[in-house]
């Protein structure tokens, strides 16, 4: 059985390490580790969906985070009902010249999603992911 977790001493350093399957955590190199004591893990602290604009999402952080945005498109059926298209999540965003851009202003206090976007006239939903990674 390969040892994959250390909570304690590894070499001359104390901390926590988790290795990939098949690698001995005592000797694993950096690219063979899932978690080590000295490198921050990219983590999500918030996510959600915006369906109407403009919308303010409170953040309440002390520093500017990294925010990832993508979108989905709703198609309008002939009977007037909307349904999620098979386009899935688009990235990058916004998309192409034919899309009315949605912009977002990010501060430490909040995110403001301005003017509703569209895709060839179809309404879109904007999905955001806020990372625990500062941008300043």
């Amino acid at each position, binding site marked *: 059985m390969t040892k994959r977790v250390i909570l304690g001493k590894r070499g001359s350093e104390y901390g926590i390490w988790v290795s990939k399957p098949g690698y001995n955590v005592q000797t694993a190199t950096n690219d063979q580790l899932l978690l080590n004591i000295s490198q921050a893990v990219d983590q999500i602290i918030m996510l959600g969906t915006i369906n109407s604009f403009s919308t303010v999402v409170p953040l309440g952080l002390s520093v500017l985070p990294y925010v990832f945005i993508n979108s989905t498109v709703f198609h309008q059926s002939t009977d007037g009902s909307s349904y999620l298209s098979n386009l899935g*999540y688009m990235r990058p965003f916004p998309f192409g010249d034919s899309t009315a851009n949605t912009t977002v202003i990010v501060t430490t206090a909040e995110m403001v999603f301005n003017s509703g976007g569209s895709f060839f006239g179809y309404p879109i939903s904007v999905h955001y992911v806020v990372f625990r990674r500062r941008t300043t």
Partner: protein
Amino acid sequence: MVNPRIRIGPGGSSPFMVVQPGANPANPNFDDIIFNGNHMPLRVMQKGNISVPSKGIPQVTSQFNYSWSSPVPLVYSSPGYRRLCNCIWYEPTFSPGYWFPWFNGVNSGGSQGGGVLVNDYYLYGLNWHTTIQSGSAFYPRAIVVWYIVYYNLVGV
């Protein structure tokens, strides 16, 4: 004396916290966190590359669409999960070593759109399209698209 950098247990801002040297694992600053047990780490679901063939030098002025015809099945396909996807591309014969975000198009100007789509089951190439003059040197060359898809995050 070694300051503790790992905290496990109730109280504090998270039941499990790993922090930078000198930081307080009970209530660390934003930048001092190595791992926070309350937050979802970004995990790679799958990654790969797709070769998209050249369209050749156009004989007549026409619009070209860049896309790949075979969607890439997702190894973990289930409805209701949000995924993150990112992609970059390069031209192996024209600009090896130069990587581009998809959105910039190819050296032809007037391009539109582009990107990668992910639904519950597949990853698709999204049409990048542009109108190219007959005989233009800026025809759509063969490209390679590298993509990475992350697992769903928290339940939404």
